[in-house]
């Protein structure tokens, strides 16, 4: 499983003097489902296009199986891509779209001189096999514009996979689908990846998608990698305020590491599980909303006032004011607006991070309600830089 397939070394890229990739280093293992996750403009699509060969990096190397492929054109790479909005060929039907790559293939014959087309029967059987794999049997003579979004999506995947690539690149492939279809396709994609057993490199800005499907998540911002890890690592042990805020909901509080396993916030000391900091080092403390227990005021480690309550079905999202800093707490118990409550946090609910340039930028819910719903809004297309 952990054989290295692709390595990106020191990639730099700029459009119009704006740094899009800043000394990016990354390796990708064979048969891995790796997700590049980040907000619009973080460089994830550029990274994908560099791997696909559509964009040449300003500096740095792309290695494939240990060989430098910077100058190999896209059609000679063992990599295929599922594009944003699919980029299916409108003038060809479903069958011909999927067969396109196979028709382009040339095989050397026995003497190694002439290069032959694939036989028509082979093309036919491979396309049919692929149609079956993406559950589109019987659609081969349909026109592309007579398909639904989900069906077009599947044709795009089939068109890429029929070439049996070593790596499949997916550029926000689910962006254009509605929520229900998106959830189904997430599972479908993961199933297909496991079935064909190749590397998937997936680009998205949707943290939930990333958590659901990935073996490895690479969180990016401003052209740099913020954190690489399994979904669990990323969620439970974010490296900095940016990651903590981008993945899930987080209250991020200024703190002081008194010593190992003891962190101070609001002048109070809380036991925790983290260590390895200097004594009295200033830190960022992450507390997930679901890790906070509401207790009577007198039992609370901290006390605050409820300023907002939203019913979310499974739980209430309540905003609590602790000396001017607003926290988000998810709880099954209802507390009315204006109530004073106490809270208690278990040591494993506290995650301590080193200070970073992102400190103080995230984790306050003062401007609640708008802010944290926004993250689910589909962001505009992240193009190659010039088109809006």
């Amino acid at each position, binding site marked *: 499983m952990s054989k290295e397939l692709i390595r990106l070394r020191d990639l730099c890229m700029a459009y119009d003097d704006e740094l899009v990739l800043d000394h990016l280093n990354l390796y990708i293992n064979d048969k891995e489902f790796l997700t590049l996750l980040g907000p619009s403009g973080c460089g994830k699509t550029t990274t994908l296009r560099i791997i*696909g*060969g*559509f964009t040449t990096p300003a500096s740095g190397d792309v290695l494939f199986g240990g060989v430098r492929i910077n100058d190999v*054109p*896209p*059609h000679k790479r063992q*990599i*295929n*891509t599922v*594009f*944003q*909005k699919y*980029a*299916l*060929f*409108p*003038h060809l039907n479903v069958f*011909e779209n999927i067969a*396109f*790559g196979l028709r*382009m*293939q040339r095989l050397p014959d026995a003497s190694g001189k002439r290069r032959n087309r694939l036989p*028509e029967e082979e093309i036919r059987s491979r396309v049919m096999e692929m149609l079956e794999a993406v559950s589109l049997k019987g659609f081969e003579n349909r*026109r592309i*514009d*007579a398909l639904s979004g989900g069906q077009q999506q599947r044709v795009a995947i089939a*068109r*890429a996979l029929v*070439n049996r690539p070593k790596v499949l690149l997916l550029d926000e492939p689910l962006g254009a689908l509605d929520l229900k279809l998106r959830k189904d396709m997430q599972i479908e994609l993961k199933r297909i990846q496991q079935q064909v057993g190749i590397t998937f490199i997936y680009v998205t800005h949707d943290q939930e998608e990333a958590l659901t499907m990935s073996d490895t998540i690479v969180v990016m911002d401003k052209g740099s990698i913020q954190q690489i890890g399994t979904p669990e690592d990323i969620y439970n042990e974010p490296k900095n305020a940016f990651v903590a805020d981008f993945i899930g909901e987080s209250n991020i509080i200024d703190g002081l590491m008194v010593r190992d396993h003891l962190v101070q916030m609001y002048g109070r000391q809380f036991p925790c599980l983290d260590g390895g900091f200097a004594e009295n080092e200033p830190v960022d403390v992450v507390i997930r909303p679901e890790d906070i227990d509401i207790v009577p005021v007198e039992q609370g480690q901290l006390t605050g006032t409820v300023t907002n309550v939203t019913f979310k079905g499974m739980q209430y999202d309540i905003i609590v004011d602790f000396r001017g800093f607003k926290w988000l707490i998810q709880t099954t118990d209802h507390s009315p607006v204006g109530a004073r409550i106490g809270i208690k946090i278990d040591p494993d609910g506290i995650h301590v991070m080193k200070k970073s340039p992102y400190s103080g930028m995230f984790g306050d819910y003062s401007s609640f309600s708008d802010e944290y719903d926004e993250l689910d809004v589909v962001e505009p297309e992240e*193009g190659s830089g*010039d*088109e809006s």
Partner: protein
Amino acid sequence: MKRRNSIVSRVFTALVFLFLYAPIFLLIVFSFNSGNSNVVWSGFSLDWYRELFHNRLIMRSVYTTLLVSLLATAIATVAGTFAAIGFYSLRRRSRNLLNTVNNIPMMNADIVTGVAMCLFFVAFFTFWSDFAVWFNGIQHLLVLPERLTLGFGTLLIAHVTFNIPYVILSVGPKLRQMDKNLVDAAMDLGCTWMQAFWKVILPEIKPGITSGALTAFTMSVDDFIISYFTAGSSSSTLAMTIYGMTKKRVTPEINAISTLLFITVLALLVVVNLREARAERRGEEHRPVSSRFSQFFDTPRGRRLRRGAAGALAACFLAAVVLLTGATNAQPVVNVCSWGEYIDEDLITQFEEETGIIVNYQTAESNETLYSLLKSGAGDYDVIVPSDYMISQLIEEDMLSELDFSQIPNYALISDRFKGLTYDPEERYSVPYAWGTVGIIYNETMVNEPVTSWSVLFDDQYAGNVLMFRNSRDAMATALSYLGYSLNTTDETELREAFQLLKDAKNRGVYQSFVMDEIFQKLEGGNAAIGVYYAGDYLTMRENNEDLCFAVPEEGSNWFMDAMCVLKDAPHYDEAMAWINFIASTEANLANMDYLWYGSPNQEALEQYPAYYQELYDEELDPADYDIIAAPPEVLERCEAYLVLPFETRQLYNELWTELGI
């Protein structure tokens, strides 16, 4: 209220369409007229169409037009498509800039484009000839032509140039509509860029390319002005030929060719619009009707067939072009510039058959146009047929070449009366072509007594029914000769006196209008009683209106002589001599005299014409008509030919003419 509005708007719409289409409708109707008038309907016939297809000049220019349009369309479509793709892949700001630059030539006045190109080509040719002389001087392996001229090549370059923007304009939007990732997707699936272009981009932008090509073709067929300035002397497009033919009058033959041109362009437009409408419907419907056909072409066999067919077509096309250019280059040619409808065109065919020399026959509008063409370097002719006063000016400016009279034995046939005239006293530069007089044409049913004097043009007797020349020299000449002054006077008082006469008459409303070739319609249709024009043209008018009469006023008038000259450094000097000798022959003069109804300078022709006429039409020529065609010496004696006026006098003419305010 609402109802009334709708009636008003309907009437308004009807009027708009009436004004738009009535002229074209009229033109089409009169193309089927059996007579040669555009006013009097004399019955249905297809004669003019038949004549059209026998008209060598027209058929050759149709051929030139089609060839240049097709070639220019093909080249511009390829170049424009790739240019559009280049634009498309640029950053937005540079793309917008380039699109604007691309749009300017389309909005630019054709005349500016035409003149600019003409100047550019001429400048380039000058540079080239210096270069070629130097290059041929230092080595002998490769001999470069030292003299380049305007011709089919420059015409083609000009057409390609003005067509490209239209192609870019119609391909651009199709590219922008295309999914940006399609090319990436094709390359991802194993295509090189070129393969991606053929397999993905091309099918996507094909509708844009087709409509761009159709627009370009229509523009090419349509173009007159740019062609006029860049075609040089050896090629002539249909529009140019038609324009040349309208010099004298709009004959039904022109109606016929215009009808065909109108229908061609209409058909092209219908095709373009139908295609667009179908493309819009495509979204709703499934495959178009041709589905099985196009599916066949997607099979390997179909593809091979398609490729074969495309290759064969391209090869044919290339072969045609090569043969054509080869054919025209191999044969000797002579470039002639004359006036519209100023030759019996059978003579051209006859000359080509006899000598094997191809005649490129073009026409200019007036002596002044011809002069400016020659001066700009665009008129690269061998033989020209200017009028007397222009000949002396050209001699003065050393623009003519002396003729080799040993190659023109027929010069001996020219009547001595017409030799050694003031414009070429030493008989070195010119051979007379045709001559005529200016006189008064009047409708006998509309005047009280036969007209014999210029006075009818200046007194109030026929006020509101008189047509005057719309050019200063001819108009002033009528007044000068009425007053008994020389037509070539440079005396300012005399000129001012003549002018005052004209101006007073104009202010008193004597003149219905100032006209040139419109006089045909007005007099034939009986819309005016009196006009001044050329004797030969009077006879043409009389065919359509028996009531018209002609008189050379007793005070005298203008007579003119047009003569053939050869330009200095003419590239086809010997061919030019052959042409002049041929035209000077008695047979050619007879044919021309009969066609033009202008006097021939050939003594034998003058004598034989009545017999020739009788044999041809089986009726006797009215001696009075003969005297109109070829004025007898006593009439000619009281007439005067124009001479070149000195610069100050020309300026005075311009000033006075402006003051008249027409």
